[in-house]
Protein backbone atom coordinates (compact mmCIF):
# COMPACT_ATOMS: atom_id res chain seq x y z
CA UNK A 1 0.00 0.00 0.00
CA UNK A 2 2.72 2.42 1.00
CA UNK A 3 4.66 1.63 -2.14
CA UNK A 4 1.65 2.54 -4.22
CA UNK A 5 1.02 5.75 -2.26
CA UNK A 6 2.27 8.12 -4.99
CA UNK A 7 -0.25 6.95 -7.53
CA UNK A 8 -3.04 6.72 -4.98
CA UNK A 9 -2.72 10.45 -4.31
CA UNK A 10 -4.04 11.02 -7.82
CA UNK A 11 -6.09 7.95 -8.54
CA UNK A 12 -8.25 8.09 -5.43
CA UNK A 13 -9.70 11.53 -6.10
CA UNK A 14 -9.95 10.63 -9.79
CA UNK A 15 -12.07 7.56 -9.14
CA UNK A 16 -14.09 9.33 -6.49
CA UNK A 17 -14.73 12.11 -8.99
CA UNK A 18 -15.96 9.62 -11.57
CA UNK A 19 -18.35 8.18 -9.02
CA UNK A 20 -19.55 11.47 -7.58
CA UNK A 21 -22.42 11.81 -10.08
CA UNK A 22 -23.56 8.34 -9.09
CA UNK A 23 -23.49 9.24 -5.43
CA UNK A 24 -25.26 12.47 -6.29
CA UNK A 25 -28.05 10.60 -8.04
CA UNK A 26 -28.60 8.53 -4.93
CA UNK A 27 -28.25 11.18 -2.21
CA UNK A 28 -27.33 14.71 -3.10
CA UNK A 29 -26.24 15.64 0.37
CA UNK A 30 -23.71 12.81 0.47
CA UNK A 31 -21.57 14.41 -2.24
CA UNK A 32 -20.02 16.73 0.28
CA UNK A 33 -18.85 13.90 2.51
CA UNK A 34 -17.87 11.86 -0.51
CA UNK A 35 -15.37 14.41 -1.77
CA UNK A 36 -14.20 15.10 1.77
CA UNK A 37 -13.31 11.43 2.04
CA UNK A 38 -11.51 11.53 -1.27
CA UNK A 39 -9.49 14.59 -0.41
CA UNK A 40 -8.76 13.37 3.10
CA UNK A 41 -7.42 10.10 1.74
CA UNK A 42 -5.41 11.97 -0.83
CA UNK A 43 -4.01 14.26 1.84
CA UNK A 44 -3.16 11.28 4.03
CA UNK A 45 -1.24 9.64 1.21
CA UNK A 46 0.48 12.93 0.44
CA UNK A 47 1.69 13.07 4.01
CA UNK A 48 2.84 9.44 3.79
CA UNK A 49 4.80 10.20 0.67
CA UNK A 50 6.18 13.34 2.23
CA UNK A 51 7.46 11.46 5.26
CA UNK A 52 8.93 8.80 3.05
CA UNK A 53 10.74 11.38 0.93
CA UNK A 54 12.13 12.99 4.05
CA UNK A 55 13.46 9.63 5.21
CA UNK A 56 14.69 8.04 2.03
CA UNK A 57 15.06 10.80 -0.53
CA UNK A 58 13.55 11.15 -3.96
CA UNK A 59 10.92 8.58 -4.93
CA UNK A 60 10.58 7.37 -8.51
CA UNK A 61 7.33 5.66 -9.35
CA UNK A 62 6.94 4.05 -12.77
CA UNK A 63 3.36 3.97 -13.89
CA UNK A 64 2.36 0.60 -15.29
CA UNK A 65 5.82 -0.70 -14.56
CA UNK A 66 7.30 0.74 -17.76
CA UNK A 67 10.73 2.14 -17.24
CA UNK A 68 11.14 5.77 -18.16
CA UNK A 69 11.64 7.39 -20.59
CA UNK A 70 9.29 4.91 -22.32
CA UNK A 71 6.65 4.98 -19.70
CA UNK A 72 5.40 7.80 -17.55
CA UNK A 73 7.14 8.36 -14.29
CA UNK A 74 6.26 10.13 -11.07
CA UNK A 75 9.20 11.80 -9.44
CA UNK A 76 8.70 13.08 -5.94
CA UNK A 77 11.59 15.02 -4.51
CA UNK A 78 11.55 17.26 -1.47
CA UNK A 79 10.01 20.17 -3.32
CA UNK A 80 6.98 18.51 -4.78
CA UNK A 81 6.48 16.30 -1.75
CA UNK A 82 5.95 19.48 0.20
CA UNK A 83 3.85 20.98 -2.57
CA UNK A 84 1.66 17.89 -2.54
CA UNK A 85 1.01 18.28 1.15
CA UNK A 86 0.23 21.97 0.76
CA UNK A 87 -2.03 21.49 -2.25
CA UNK A 88 -3.95 18.55 -0.81
CA UNK A 89 -4.30 20.27 2.56
CA UNK A 90 -5.64 23.46 1.02
CA UNK A 91 -7.98 21.48 -1.21
CA UNK A 92 -9.26 19.60 1.83
CA UNK A 93 -9.74 22.77 3.85
CA UNK A 94 -11.53 24.44 0.97
CA UNK A 95 -13.78 21.41 0.57
CA UNK A 96 -14.71 21.59 4.24
CA UNK A 97 -15.23 25.30 3.85
CA UNK A 98 -17.38 25.05 0.74
CA UNK A 99 -20.40 23.44 2.37
CA UNK A 100 -22.45 26.43 3.48
CA UNK A 101 -21.55 28.71 0.63
CA UNK A 102 -22.57 26.09 -1.94
CA UNK A 103 -25.83 25.47 -0.13
CA UNK A 104 -26.52 29.15 -0.32
CA UNK A 105 -25.31 29.93 -3.83
CA UNK A 106 -26.44 26.93 -5.90
CA UNK A 107 -28.34 24.36 -3.91
CA UNK A 108 -29.43 22.41 -6.98
CA UNK A 109 -26.05 22.10 -8.63
CA UNK A 110 -24.26 20.44 -5.77
CA UNK A 111 -23.43 17.17 -7.53
CA UNK A 112 -21.89 18.75 -10.59
CA UNK A 113 -20.11 21.35 -8.55
CA UNK A 114 -18.46 18.86 -6.25
CA UNK A 115 -17.45 16.64 -9.14
CA UNK A 116 -15.73 19.49 -10.90
CA UNK A 117 -14.27 20.66 -7.63
CA UNK A 118 -12.67 17.27 -7.05
CA UNK A 119 -11.40 17.13 -10.62
CA UNK A 120 -9.84 20.52 -10.14
CA UNK A 121 -7.97 19.29 -7.08
CA UNK A 122 -6.91 16.13 -8.94
CA UNK A 123 -5.53 18.25 -11.75
CA UNK A 124 -3.49 20.32 -9.33
CA UNK A 125 -2.08 17.27 -7.61
CA UNK A 126 -1.27 15.64 -10.94
CA UNK A 127 0.66 18.67 -12.13
CA UNK A 128 2.72 18.65 -9.00
CA UNK A 129 3.53 14.97 -8.87
CA UNK A 130 4.35 14.10 -12.45
CA UNK A 131 7.81 13.79 -13.94
CA UNK A 132 6.72 13.84 -17.55
CA UNK A 133 6.29 17.01 -19.54
CA UNK A 134 3.35 15.88 -21.61
CA UNK A 135 1.56 14.31 -18.68
CA UNK A 136 1.91 17.67 -16.98
CA UNK A 137 0.12 19.27 -19.91
CA UNK A 138 -2.76 16.83 -19.61
CA UNK A 139 -3.22 17.57 -15.93
CA UNK A 140 -2.80 21.27 -16.59
CA UNK A 141 -5.74 21.03 -18.97
CA UNK A 142 -7.85 19.03 -16.53
CA UNK A 143 -7.37 21.66 -13.88
CA UNK A 144 -7.87 24.50 -16.35
CA UNK A 145 -11.11 23.05 -17.73
CA UNK A 146 -12.45 22.49 -14.25
CA UNK A 147 -11.35 25.99 -13.34
CA UNK A 148 -13.17 27.55 -16.30
CA UNK A 149 -16.42 25.91 -15.23
CA UNK A 150 -16.01 26.74 -11.55
CA UNK A 151 -15.46 30.37 -12.40
CA UNK A 152 -18.21 30.65 -14.99
CA UNK A 153 -20.98 29.80 -12.52
CA UNK A 154 -20.22 32.88 -10.42
CA UNK A 155 -22.04 36.15 -10.10
CA UNK A 156 -22.91 38.62 -12.85
CA UNK A 157 -20.03 39.08 -15.28
CA UNK A 158 -18.47 35.77 -14.36
CA UNK A 159 -19.29 34.33 -17.74
CA UNK A 160 -17.33 36.91 -19.64
CA UNK A 161 -14.49 36.64 -17.15
CA UNK A 162 -14.47 32.88 -17.60
CA UNK A 163 -14.49 33.26 -21.36
CA UNK A 164 -11.51 35.57 -21.25
CA UNK A 165 -9.82 33.04 -19.01
CA UNK A 166 -10.58 30.22 -21.45
CA UNK A 167 -9.05 32.07 -24.37
CA UNK A 168 -5.99 33.35 -22.55
CA UNK A 169 -5.51 30.15 -20.62
CA UNK A 170 -5.61 28.14 -23.83
CA UNK A 171 -3.01 30.41 -25.37
CA UNK A 172 -0.84 29.80 -22.33
CA UNK A 173 -1.29 26.05 -22.51
CA UNK A 174 -0.62 26.09 -26.27
CA UNK A 175 2.61 27.99 -25.74
CA UNK A 176 3.63 25.39 -23.21
CA UNK A 177 2.78 22.63 -25.66
CA UNK A 178 4.81 24.28 -28.41
CA UNK A 179 7.74 24.50 -26.04
CA UNK A 180 7.41 20.81 -25.19
CA UNK A 181 7.25 20.01 -28.91
CA UNK A 182 10.43 21.96 -29.61
CA UNK A 183 12.19 20.14 -26.82
CA UNK A 184 10.88 16.83 -28.07
CA UNK A 185 12.12 17.46 -31.58
CA UNK A 186 15.60 18.16 -30.30
CA UNK A 187 15.84 15.42 -27.70
CA UNK A 188 13.23 12.84 -28.59
CA UNK A 189 12.15 12.50 -25.01
CA UNK A 190 9.34 13.71 -22.77
CA UNK A 191 10.65 12.56 -19.42
CA UNK A 192 11.97 15.48 -17.40
CA UNK A 193 15.08 13.77 -16.05
CA UNK A 194 15.89 12.31 -19.45
CA UNK A 195 15.42 15.67 -21.13
CA UNK A 196 17.65 17.32 -18.57
CA UNK A 197 20.45 14.89 -19.42
CA UNK A 198 19.96 15.12 -23.18
CA UNK A 199 19.73 18.89 -23.25
CA UNK A 200 23.37 19.20 -22.26
CA UNK A 201 24.33 18.38 -25.85
CA UNK A 202 21.93 20.68 -27.63
CA UNK A 203 21.91 23.54 -25.17
CA UNK A 204 23.18 26.13 -27.54
CA UNK A 205 20.73 25.76 -30.37
CA UNK A 206 18.17 28.37 -31.21
CA UNK A 207 15.43 25.75 -30.99
CA UNK A 208 16.06 25.18 -27.32
CA UNK A 209 16.19 28.89 -26.62
CA UNK A 210 12.85 29.36 -28.29
CA UNK A 211 11.44 26.32 -26.53
CA UNK A 212 12.41 27.80 -23.21
CA UNK A 213 10.99 31.16 -24.20
CA UNK A 214 7.65 29.63 -25.11
CA UNK A 215 7.38 27.52 -21.98
CA UNK A 216 8.24 30.59 -19.95
CA UNK A 217 5.66 32.67 -21.80
CA UNK A 218 3.01 30.02 -21.28
CA UNK A 219 3.73 29.82 -17.59
CA UNK A 220 3.77 33.58 -17.23
CA UNK A 221 0.27 33.64 -18.65
CA UNK A 222 -0.89 30.83 -16.38
CA UNK A 223 0.58 32.38 -13.25
CA UNK A 224 -0.78 35.82 -14.07
CA UNK A 225 2.52 37.61 -13.92
CA UNK A 226 2.43 41.25 -14.89
CA UNK A 227 1.67 42.16 -17.70
CA UNK A 228 -0.20 38.92 -18.43
CA UNK A 229 -2.45 39.15 -15.40
CA UNK A 230 -5.46 40.63 -17.26
CA UNK A 231 -7.61 37.52 -17.05
CA UNK A 232 -7.09 37.06 -13.37
CA UNK A 233 -8.77 39.84 -11.36
CA UNK A 234 -12.11 39.49 -13.11
CA UNK A 235 -12.11 35.72 -12.97
CA UNK A 236 -11.30 35.39 -9.29
CA UNK A 237 -13.52 38.27 -8.25
CA UNK A 238 -16.65 36.98 -9.92
CA UNK A 239 -16.15 33.31 -9.11
CA UNK A 240 -18.20 31.74 -6.30
CA UNK A 241 -16.50 31.88 -2.90
CA UNK A 242 -15.66 28.20 -2.77
CA UNK A 243 -14.20 28.19 -6.28
CA UNK A 244 -12.03 31.23 -5.77
CA UNK A 245 -10.80 29.86 -2.46
CA UNK A 246 -9.57 26.76 -4.29
CA UNK A 247 -8.30 28.25 -7.53
CA UNK A 248 -6.88 31.60 -6.55
CA UNK A 249 -4.29 30.34 -4.10
CA UNK A 250 -3.33 27.23 -6.04
CA UNK A 251 -3.44 27.91 -9.78
CA UNK A 252 -0.92 30.72 -9.72
CA UNK A 253 1.33 29.05 -7.17
CA UNK A 254 1.35 25.77 -9.06
CA UNK A 255 2.37 27.58 -12.22
CA UNK A 256 5.15 29.15 -10.21
CA UNK A 257 6.11 25.66 -9.05
CA UNK A 258 6.27 24.50 -12.69
CA UNK A 259 8.52 27.46 -13.40
CA UNK A 260 10.88 26.36 -10.64
CA UNK A 261 10.79 22.82 -12.01
CA UNK A 262 11.46 23.95 -15.56
CA UNK A 263 14.31 26.24 -14.62
CA UNK A 264 16.10 24.09 -12.10
CA UNK A 265 15.28 20.53 -13.07
CA UNK A 266 14.82 20.51 -16.83
CA UNK A 267 16.95 23.38 -18.00
CA UNK A 268 19.89 23.61 -15.71
CA UNK A 269 20.81 26.89 -14.04
CA UNK A 270 23.98 27.04 -16.14
CA UNK A 271 21.86 27.13 -19.28
CA UNK A 272 19.72 29.90 -17.89
CA UNK A 273 22.61 32.15 -16.99
CA UNK A 274 24.85 31.32 -19.93
CA UNK A 275 22.58 31.89 -22.86
CA UNK A 276 19.79 34.30 -22.24
CA UNK A 277 19.10 37.41 -20.19
CA UNK A 278 16.19 35.50 -18.66
CA UNK A 279 17.06 36.18 -15.07
CA UNK A 280 17.26 39.91 -15.68
CA UNK A 281 13.91 39.86 -17.45
CA UNK A 282 12.31 37.87 -14.66
CA UNK A 283 13.74 40.16 -12.04
CA UNK A 284 12.37 43.26 -13.72
CA UNK A 285 9.03 41.66 -14.49
CA UNK A 286 8.80 40.75 -10.83
CA UNK A 287 9.71 44.29 -9.89
CA UNK A 288 7.06 45.72 -12.20
CA UNK A 289 4.48 43.24 -10.94
CA UNK A 290 5.10 44.19 -7.33
CA UNK A 291 4.86 47.91 -7.96
CA UNK A 292 1.87 47.62 -10.27
CA UNK A 293 0.04 45.13 -8.05
CA UNK A 294 0.61 47.30 -5.01
CA UNK A 295 -0.62 50.46 -6.66
CA UNK A 296 -3.65 48.82 -8.24
CA UNK A 297 -4.66 47.10 -5.03
CA UNK A 298 -4.96 50.46 -3.29
CA UNK A 299 -7.34 51.63 -5.97
CA UNK A 300 -9.84 48.79 -5.45
CA UNK A 301 -13.04 49.04 -3.49
CA UNK A 302 -13.94 45.39 -3.90
CA UNK A 303 -12.24 43.12 -1.39
CA UNK A 304 -11.78 40.13 -3.67
CA UNK A 305 -10.45 42.33 -6.45
CA UNK A 306 -8.01 43.83 -4.03
CA UNK A 307 -6.85 40.33 -3.13
CA UNK A 308 -6.34 39.60 -6.81
CA UNK A 309 -3.97 42.50 -7.16
CA UNK A 310 -2.21 41.39 -4.01
CA UNK A 311 -1.70 38.06 -5.79
CA UNK A 312 -0.23 39.95 -8.76
CA UNK A 313 2.29 41.49 -6.40
CA UNK A 314 3.00 38.21 -4.61
CA UNK A 315 3.68 36.47 -7.91
CA UNK A 316 6.10 39.29 -8.54
CA UNK A 317 7.89 38.34 -5.31
CA UNK A 318 8.27 34.75 -6.45
CA UNK A 319 9.35 35.41 -10.02
CA UNK A 320 11.63 38.25 -9.01
CA UNK A 321 13.14 36.04 -6.34
CA UNK A 322 13.90 33.35 -8.88
CA UNK A 323 15.21 36.04 -11.21
CA UNK A 324 17.71 37.17 -8.59
CA UNK A 325 19.28 33.77 -9.07
CA UNK A 326 21.17 33.37 -5.86
CA UNK A 327 20.51 30.60 -3.34
CA UNK A 328 19.11 32.89 -0.66
CA UNK A 329 16.60 34.51 -2.97
CA UNK A 330 15.57 31.18 -4.47
CA UNK A 331 15.02 29.78 -1.00
CA UNK A 332 12.89 32.80 -0.30
CA UNK A 333 10.95 32.39 -3.52
CA UNK A 334 10.21 28.71 -2.90
CA UNK A 335 9.24 29.38 0.69
CA UNK A 336 7.00 32.15 -0.57
CA UNK A 337 5.23 29.80 -2.97
CA UNK A 338 4.18 27.73 0.03
CA UNK A 339 3.44 30.62 2.33
CA UNK A 340 1.51 32.54 -0.23
CA UNK A 341 -0.65 29.55 -1.09
CA UNK A 342 -1.68 29.32 2.55
CA UNK A 343 -2.12 33.04 3.03
CA UNK A 344 -4.14 33.58 -0.12
CA UNK A 345 -6.36 30.65 0.74
CA UNK A 346 -6.99 32.22 4.13
CA UNK A 347 -7.81 35.59 2.63
CA UNK A 348 -10.28 34.10 0.19
CA UNK A 349 -11.86 32.14 3.03
CA UNK A 350 -12.45 35.43 4.79
CA UNK A 351 -13.82 36.98 1.62
CA UNK A 352 -16.24 34.08 1.32
CA UNK A 353 -17.38 34.45 4.91
CA UNK A 354 -18.04 38.14 4.40
CA UNK A 355 -19.96 37.35 1.26
CA UNK A 356 -21.93 34.65 3.08
CA UNK A 357 -22.80 37.00 5.90
CA UNK A 358 -23.44 40.23 4.05
CA UNK A 359 -24.08 39.09 0.48
CA UNK A 360 -21.32 41.28 -0.94
CA UNK A 361 -17.57 41.53 -0.81
CA UNK A 362 -16.85 45.23 -0.86
CA UNK A 363 -14.51 46.82 1.62
CA UNK A 364 -17.38 48.68 3.21
CA UNK A 365 -19.10 45.40 4.03
CA UNK A 366 -16.55 44.83 6.77
CA UNK A 367 -18.30 47.43 8.89
CA UNK A 368 -18.48 46.47 12.55
CA UNK A 369 -17.39 42.93 11.84
CA UNK A 370 -14.93 42.97 14.75
CA UNK A 371 -17.93 43.16 17.04
CA UNK A 372 -20.04 40.67 15.15
CA UNK A 373 -17.45 38.06 14.23
CA UNK A 374 -14.50 38.43 16.58
CA UNK A 375 -13.03 34.99 15.88
CA UNK A 376 -13.19 35.32 12.11
CA UNK A 377 -11.66 38.74 12.27
CA UNK A 378 -8.99 37.48 14.63
CA UNK A 379 -8.00 34.90 12.04
CA UNK A 380 -8.16 37.61 9.40
CA UNK A 381 -5.81 39.84 11.38
CA UNK A 382 -3.22 37.08 11.65
CA UNK A 383 -3.42 36.30 7.95
CA UNK A 384 -3.20 39.99 7.10
CA UNK A 385 -0.18 40.43 9.34
CA UNK A 386 1.46 37.60 7.49
CA UNK A 387 0.81 39.28 4.16
CA UNK A 388 2.22 42.50 5.57
CA UNK A 389 5.19 40.55 6.88
CA UNK A 390 5.20 40.85 10.65
CA UNK A 391 7.23 38.28 12.56
CA UNK A 392 6.64 35.54 13.66
CA UNK A 393 4.15 34.85 10.84
CA UNK A 394 5.45 32.96 7.83
CA UNK A 395 5.11 35.88 5.43
CA UNK A 396 7.89 37.68 7.24
CA UNK A 397 10.45 34.99 6.66
CA UNK A 398 10.01 34.55 2.95
CA UNK A 399 10.22 38.29 2.63
CA UNK A 400 13.34 38.25 4.78
CA UNK A 401 15.09 35.80 2.49
CA UNK A 402 13.95 37.66 -0.59
CA UNK A 403 15.21 41.00 0.66
CA UNK A 404 18.48 39.46 1.77
CA UNK A 405 18.76 37.82 -1.64
CA UNK A 406 18.15 41.18 -3.28
CA UNK A 407 20.91 42.71 -1.19
CA UNK A 408 23.29 39.89 -2.10
CA UNK A 409 22.41 40.37 -5.76
CA UNK A 410 22.78 44.14 -5.46
CA UNK A 411 19.23 44.51 -6.74
CA UNK A 412 18.34 47.49 -4.62
CA UNK A 413 15.23 48.48 -6.59
CA UNK A 414 13.81 45.02 -5.99
CA UNK A 415 14.48 45.22 -2.26
CA UNK A 416 12.84 48.64 -2.21
CA UNK A 417 9.86 47.27 -4.12
CA UNK A 418 9.41 44.50 -1.54
CA UNK A 419 9.40 47.02 1.27
CA UNK A 420 7.08 49.28 -0.68
CA UNK A 421 4.67 46.42 -1.13
CA UNK A 422 4.76 45.70 2.61
CA UNK A 423 3.93 49.30 3.33
CA UNK A 424 1.08 49.23 0.86
CA UNK A 425 -0.24 46.08 2.50
CA UNK A 426 -0.23 47.88 5.83
CA UNK A 427 -2.40 50.57 4.28
CA UNK A 428 -4.69 48.04 2.60
CA UNK A 429 -5.37 45.91 5.61
CA UNK A 430 -5.53 48.61 8.21
CA UNK A 431 -8.04 50.39 6.04
CA UNK A 432 -10.19 47.30 6.37
CA UNK A 433 -9.45 46.99 10.08
CA UNK A 434 -10.58 50.57 10.55
CA UNK A 435 -13.84 49.81 8.77
CA UNK A 436 -14.29 46.63 10.75
CA UNK A 437 -13.43 48.41 13.97
CA UNK A 438 -16.34 50.73 13.40
CA UNK A 439 -15.26 54.29 14.08
CA UNK A 440 -18.14 56.48 15.00
CA UNK A 441 -17.77 59.90 13.48
CA UNK A 442 -21.09 61.24 14.62
CA UNK A 443 -20.86 61.58 18.37
CA UNK A 444 -18.71 60.48 21.23
CA UNK A 445 -19.56 56.83 21.55
CA UNK A 446 -17.86 56.31 24.90
CA UNK A 447 -20.20 55.80 27.74
CA UNK A 448 -22.27 52.75 27.06
CA UNK A 449 -20.56 49.94 28.82
CA UNK A 450 -20.72 46.72 26.81
CA UNK A 451 -24.40 46.93 26.18
CA UNK A 452 -25.55 43.47 25.23
CA UNK A 453 -22.26 42.65 23.55
CA UNK A 454 -23.21 38.99 23.70
CA UNK A 455 -26.25 39.34 21.52
CA UNK A 456 -24.40 41.18 18.73
CA UNK A 457 -22.13 38.29 17.94
CA UNK A 458 -23.11 36.26 14.90
CA UNK A 459 -20.14 34.16 13.95
CA UNK A 460 -19.64 32.42 10.63
CA UNK A 461 -20.79 28.79 10.44
CA UNK A 462 -18.35 26.29 11.91
CA UNK A 463 -17.49 24.72 8.56
CA UNK A 464 -16.29 28.12 7.35
CA UNK A 465 -14.75 29.24 10.60
CA UNK A 466 -12.62 26.21 11.31
CA UNK A 467 -10.65 26.28 8.04
CA UNK A 468 -9.95 29.98 8.50
CA UNK A 469 -8.71 29.43 12.04
CA UNK A 470 -6.61 26.48 10.94
CA UNK A 471 -5.02 28.58 8.25
CA UNK A 472 -4.09 31.25 10.74
CA UNK A 473 -2.55 28.62 13.01
CA UNK A 474 -0.63 27.13 10.10
CA UNK A 475 0.67 30.58 9.28
CA UNK A 476 2.07 31.05 12.76
CA UNK A 477 3.51 27.55 12.98
CA UNK A 478 5.18 27.61 9.58
CA UNK A 479 6.57 30.98 10.59
CA UNK A 480 8.08 29.65 13.78
CA UNK A 481 9.30 26.43 12.22
CA UNK A 482 10.40 27.97 8.91
CA UNK A 483 14.01 27.12 9.71
CA UNK A 484 13.07 23.45 9.89
CA UNK A 485 11.32 23.67 6.54
CA UNK A 486 14.25 25.44 4.94
CA UNK A 487 16.99 23.13 6.18
CA UNK A 488 15.13 19.87 5.79
CA UNK A 489 13.31 20.50 2.58
CA UNK A 490 14.03 23.61 0.60
CA UNK A 491 17.81 23.38 0.84
CA UNK A 492 17.65 20.00 -0.88
CA UNK A 493 16.15 21.59 -3.96
CA UNK A 494 18.06 24.85 -4.03
CA UNK A 495 20.72 24.53 -6.71
CA UNK A 496 24.32 25.29 -5.92
CA UNK A 497 25.00 28.35 -7.97
Amino acid sequence: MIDQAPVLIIVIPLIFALLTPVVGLWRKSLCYFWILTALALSAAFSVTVFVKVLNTGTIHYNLGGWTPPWGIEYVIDHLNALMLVVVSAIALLTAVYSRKSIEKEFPNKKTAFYTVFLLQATGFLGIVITGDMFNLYVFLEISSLAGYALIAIGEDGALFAAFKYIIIGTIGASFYLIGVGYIYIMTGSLNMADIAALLQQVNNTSVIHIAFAFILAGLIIKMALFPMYIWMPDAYTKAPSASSALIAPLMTKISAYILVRVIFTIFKPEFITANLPVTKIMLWLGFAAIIYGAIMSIAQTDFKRMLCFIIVAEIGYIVGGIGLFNPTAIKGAILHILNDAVMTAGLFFIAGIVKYKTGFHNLTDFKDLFKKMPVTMGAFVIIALSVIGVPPTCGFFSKWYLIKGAIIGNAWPFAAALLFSSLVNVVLFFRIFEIGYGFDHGHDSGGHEELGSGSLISEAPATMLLPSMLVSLIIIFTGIYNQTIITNIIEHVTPNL
Partner: protein
Amino acid sequence: MKFKILSLFFIVITGIILIYGVAGMPDLADPDSPASRHVSPEYIQNTYKDAHTPNMVTTILADYRGYDTLGETTVIFTAGIACILLLKNLKGRKSHD
Protein backbone atom coordinates in the same frame (compact mmCIF):
# COMPACT_ATOMS: atom_id res chain seq x y z
CA MET B 1 -7.46 50.46 -36.63
CA LYS B 2 -4.53 51.36 -34.44
CA PHE B 3 -5.28 48.27 -32.39
CA LYS B 4 -5.26 46.13 -35.52
CA ILE B 5 -1.89 47.40 -36.66
CA LEU B 6 -0.48 46.93 -33.22
CA SER B 7 -1.70 43.37 -32.98
CA LEU B 8 -0.47 42.63 -36.51
CA PHE B 9 2.90 43.91 -35.48
CA PHE B 10 2.80 41.70 -32.39
CA ILE B 11 1.82 38.69 -34.46
CA VAL B 12 4.58 39.30 -36.97
CA ILE B 13 7.07 39.42 -34.10
CA THR B 14 5.74 36.11 -32.80
CA GLY B 15 6.06 34.67 -36.30
CA ILE B 16 9.65 35.81 -36.61
CA ILE B 17 10.47 34.25 -33.26
CA LEU B 18 8.87 30.99 -34.32
CA ILE B 19 10.71 30.93 -37.65
CA TYR B 20 13.97 31.71 -35.90
CA GLY B 21 13.22 28.73 -33.68
CA VAL B 22 12.47 26.25 -36.42
CA ALA B 23 15.53 27.23 -38.42
CA GLY B 24 17.66 24.99 -36.26
CA MET B 25 15.32 22.02 -36.39
CA PRO B 26 15.94 18.80 -38.26
CA ASP B 27 14.46 18.66 -41.74
CA LEU B 28 11.06 17.22 -42.40
CA ALA B 29 11.10 13.43 -42.43
CA ASP B 30 14.70 13.24 -41.39
CA PRO B 31 15.20 9.68 -40.19
CA ASP B 32 18.21 10.74 -38.14
CA SER B 33 16.44 13.38 -36.10
CA PRO B 34 16.65 12.95 -32.33
CA ALA B 35 12.93 12.33 -32.17
CA SER B 36 13.34 9.30 -34.42
CA ARG B 37 16.45 7.97 -32.78
CA HIS B 38 15.74 8.26 -29.08
CA VAL B 39 12.87 6.51 -27.30
CA SER B 40 10.71 5.82 -30.34
CA PRO B 41 12.81 2.97 -31.84
CA GLU B 42 12.32 0.99 -28.68
CA TYR B 43 8.59 1.39 -29.02
CA ILE B 44 8.77 0.06 -32.55
CA GLN B 45 11.01 -2.84 -31.68
CA ASN B 46 9.32 -3.94 -28.50
CA THR B 47 5.68 -3.37 -29.25
CA TYR B 48 4.92 -6.90 -30.26
CA LYS B 49 7.13 -8.42 -27.63
CA ASP B 50 5.58 -6.40 -24.84
CA ALA B 51 1.96 -6.17 -25.85
CA HIS B 52 1.37 -8.55 -28.72
CA THR B 53 -0.15 -5.78 -30.74
CA PRO B 54 1.24 -4.86 -34.10
CA ASN B 55 -0.23 -1.36 -33.93
CA MET B 56 2.33 0.72 -32.11
CA VAL B 57 0.03 3.67 -31.61
CA THR B 58 -2.37 1.46 -29.76
CA THR B 59 0.37 -0.01 -27.64
CA ILE B 60 1.68 3.35 -26.61
CA LEU B 61 -1.74 4.84 -26.12
CA ALA B 62 -3.08 2.07 -23.98
CA ASP B 63 0.03 0.65 -22.45
CA TYR B 64 3.30 2.55 -22.38
CA ARG B 65 1.62 5.89 -21.87
CA GLY B 66 -1.74 4.56 -20.78
CA TYR B 67 -1.77 6.98 -17.93
CA ASP B 68 -1.93 9.88 -20.37
CA THR B 69 -4.99 8.28 -21.84
CA LEU B 70 -6.59 8.03 -18.44
CA GLY B 71 -5.95 11.76 -18.16
CA GLU B 72 -7.44 12.22 -21.61
CA THR B 73 -10.67 10.50 -20.66
CA THR B 74 -10.73 12.53 -17.49
CA VAL B 75 -10.47 15.66 -19.60
CA ILE B 76 -13.54 14.61 -21.53
CA PHE B 77 -15.33 13.73 -18.32
CA THR B 78 -14.39 17.08 -16.86
CA ALA B 79 -15.69 18.89 -19.90
CA GLY B 80 -18.92 16.93 -19.75
CA ILE B 81 -19.56 17.59 -16.11
CA ALA B 82 -18.51 21.20 -16.60
CA CYS B 83 -21.14 21.58 -19.29
CA ILE B 84 -23.74 20.02 -17.03
CA LEU B 85 -22.72 22.36 -14.26
CA LEU B 86 -23.01 25.33 -16.57
CA LEU B 87 -26.08 24.44 -18.57
CA LYS B 88 -28.27 22.89 -15.88
CA ASN B 89 -31.38 24.99 -15.20
CA LEU B 90 -30.70 26.89 -18.36
CA LYS B 91 -34.36 27.79 -18.72
CA GLY B 92 -34.35 29.25 -15.26
CA ARG B 93 -31.97 32.00 -16.24
CA LYS B 94 -33.58 35.18 -17.31
CA SER B 95 -32.64 36.65 -20.66
CA HIS B 96 -32.17 40.30 -21.45
CA ASP B 97 -33.83 40.46 -24.84
